[in-house]
């Protein structure tokens, strides 16, 4: 604003000295000589807020950041773990304060009511049914609308939310606009405002809290096993199997480490989950660092699907398929999903696009058969190995648009004994990117077989014809 500096935020001591938010900095400096000033950095603030939100994940998986300075925790079904709502509120505020932050917290039936209470009546827990009453006492500033409207409300003699709520909605809408009425109704819980969590919510989760943070590898493994067993038990009751598993390790000093595991086939077998977890932990580029210890470990079922009871099938084929699936899972965990691949036939004539490599976990094994090989006795017409980027060769052809007679590839000369072609393959003409290719299958004098092509028509390129080696036949 006008190149002037303003106070963006201040701590409790500064507040006691009479400074306030939005005050011109020069003004504040005049009031207090010994002022420590830190330039505001919105991005860093947001980052810090995200970090605190990540850390708060230990209380409930449903955490939403409410910038610039708020967090919304949906504690539905979580309060009893901390011994009731009041105990949880104290616990959460104490834990955050212990890290050196100033925090105000409140609980209410809706996110906006809790936000208003936290700002203007901290530590308040609005009991079900008593929420309207609690809100009524809050000043109009708690509505969270523009300052202009707040000032107008005050001028109209409406000091607190209770007084505003008593007015006719039509009156308010006419004076302050529709948005104001919506904001009011959201606050009073008459309108729903969705809160979107920072992370996708798990379908199910199991977690263990430790009074003393644990460091020992054995203790961590034991905890993981217990969690996998309890999660597996619940999944079995519900007839579900896991496709994605999340593991979160909350360090006592606020760091959170998360692992994400994908499974090729739904499973709830604790032994199998443990094996995958161990593989993942072994394969981590930066190993799991317990530091001062983990105080919460959690397993989350991020994606589940209906699975029939785990019976050992008498069909050995079925068992073999399952074992292959497990093997693909283990390899994917260790080497990365994009490194364990299967091939899917594509309906295109462009050689390099004819088979698409997809992660092996994306498709159940044995699902799709490839179109059968061409006629009996036909020699292979496509190379076993194909260069992703065709390599340019220096070739000499006997006739202008004929096959190469000899060529030089990677500094080695090759004499062509016989060639077959051309097989003309046009690139996607609608893209107009690449010229048509004339492919030749060539066999050298010693029997090595390659797939070469001439880029573009001879008539167009003339002497500047370029030849490429695209593949190697068996």
């Amino acid at each position: 604003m006008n190149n002037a500096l303003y106070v963006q935020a201040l701590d409790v001591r500064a507040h006691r000295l009479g400074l306030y938010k939005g005050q011109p900095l020069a003004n504040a400096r005049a009031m207090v000589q010994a002022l420590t000033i830190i330039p505001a950095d919105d991005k860093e603030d947001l980052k810090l807020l995200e970090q605190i939100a990540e850390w708060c994940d230990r209380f409930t998986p449903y955490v939403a950041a409410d910038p610039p300075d708020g967090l919304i925790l949906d504690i539905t079904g979580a309060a009893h773990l901390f011994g009731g709502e009041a105990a949880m509120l104290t616990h959460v505020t104490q834990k955050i304060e212990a890290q050196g932050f100033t925090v105000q917290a409140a609980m209410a039936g809706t996110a906006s009511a809790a936000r208003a209470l936290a700002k203007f009546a901290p530590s308040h827990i609005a009991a079900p049914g008593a929420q309207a009453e609690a809100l009524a006492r809050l000043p109009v500033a708690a509505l969270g609308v523009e300052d202009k409207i707040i000032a107008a409300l005050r001028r109209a003699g409406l000091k607190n939310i209770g007084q505003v709520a008593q007015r006719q909605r039509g009156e308010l809408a006419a004076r302050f606009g529709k948005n104001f009425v919506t904001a009011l109704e959201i606050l009073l819980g008459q309108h729903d405002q969705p809160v979107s969590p920072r992370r996708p919510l798990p379908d199910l989760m199991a977690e263990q809290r430790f009074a003393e943070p644990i460091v020992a590898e054995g203790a961590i493994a034991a905890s993981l096993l217990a969690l996998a067993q309890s999660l597996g038990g619940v999944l079995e009751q519900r007839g579900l199997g896991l496709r994605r598993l999340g593991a979160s390790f909350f360090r006592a000093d606020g760091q959170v480490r998360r692992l994400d595991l994908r499974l090729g086939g739904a499973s709830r077998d604790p032994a199998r989950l443990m094996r995958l977890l161990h593989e993942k932990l072994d394969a981590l580029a930066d190993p799991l660092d317990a530091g001062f210890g983990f105080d919460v470990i959690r397993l989350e079922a991020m994606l589940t699907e209906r699975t029939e009871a785990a019976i050992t099938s008498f069909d050995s084929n079925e068992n073999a398929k399952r074992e292959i699936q497990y093997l693909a899972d283990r390899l994917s965990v260790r080497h990365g999903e994009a490194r364990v691949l299967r091939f899917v036939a594509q309906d295109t004539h462009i050689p390099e696009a004819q088979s698409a490599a997809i992660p092996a976990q994306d498709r159940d094994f044995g699902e799709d058969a490839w179109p059968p090989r061409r006629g009996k006795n036909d020699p292979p017409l496509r190379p076993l190995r194909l260069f992703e980027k065709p390599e340019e060769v220096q070739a000499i052809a006997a006739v202008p648009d004929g096959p190469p007679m000899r060529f030089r590839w990677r500094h080695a000369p090759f004499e062509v004994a016989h060639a077959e072609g051309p097989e003309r393959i046009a690139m996607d003409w609608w893209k107009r990117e690449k010229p048509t290719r004339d492919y030749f299958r060539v066999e050298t004098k010693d029997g090595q077989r390659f797939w070469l092509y001439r880029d573009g028509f001879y008539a167009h390129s003339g002497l500047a014809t370029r030849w490429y080696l695209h593949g190697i036949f068996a």
Partner: protein
Amino acid sequence: MNNSEKIEELRHFLAQTGPSPERPALSFGVAEADRVLGGGIAPGALHEVYARDWAAGGFAACLAILAAGSKPLFWVRPDYEALEYGALHAQGLAELGGRPENLFLVRTANAAEALAAASDILACAPVGALLLELSGMPRAMDLVASRKLNFAANLSGVTAIVLREGAQAMPSAAQTRWQVSAAPSPGMDDWGLPSFRAELVRNRLGPTGNWQLTWNPDDGIFREPTHERTAPHDSSQKNFGLVAAALFDRPAEKKRRFAF
């Protein structure tokens, strides 16, 4: 210990190390090679293919197809192989008689990880065959590593084929070792079936040999090269007329051929 006892003991040793009766050897399709190999390629063992030229990769793939049958084939290769030796083309494998729907490709960051993946795969009995592609002389691939692979293959019955490109032969625990180069295809001036000059330089069972082999994609076995034509075509084409080339996705009709 007299000689007969010694021979008896050696026989016993061979019976232990040779192909076990419950795992019949996979016939090569060529009688002479089968005789030398004791019935064919031994399943549940390590076989090495050393490349002499660009055809060896195809030979290794053919062996893997033969060993895998209708079971899954795992192809393990470090990332740089694709740059140096070309990416695996599933369509090409299908043309060789393989089953791309059963093919798993595992790409690893380096040779050591490829070996780790290989031992995981060899521990899984429902796998048909493993093809491990290693170029150059990676330090991780030593005698101990090959012993481990052979042992794992023995336990599970999964056949392991190691393709070594740009490598020198080194001591290993492999059941067989092949030096492979290309051979002119059988159809004289024709584009015929893949053919190899395969030299068996090492065989745990003793005898070695040197054969010309032609791969038959229809039956999934090798055979001796024959000089009969593989694809039917009429003789009027012999004088290089200007006719269209064989189309990949349509039945072979008329082809345009060149010879030098």
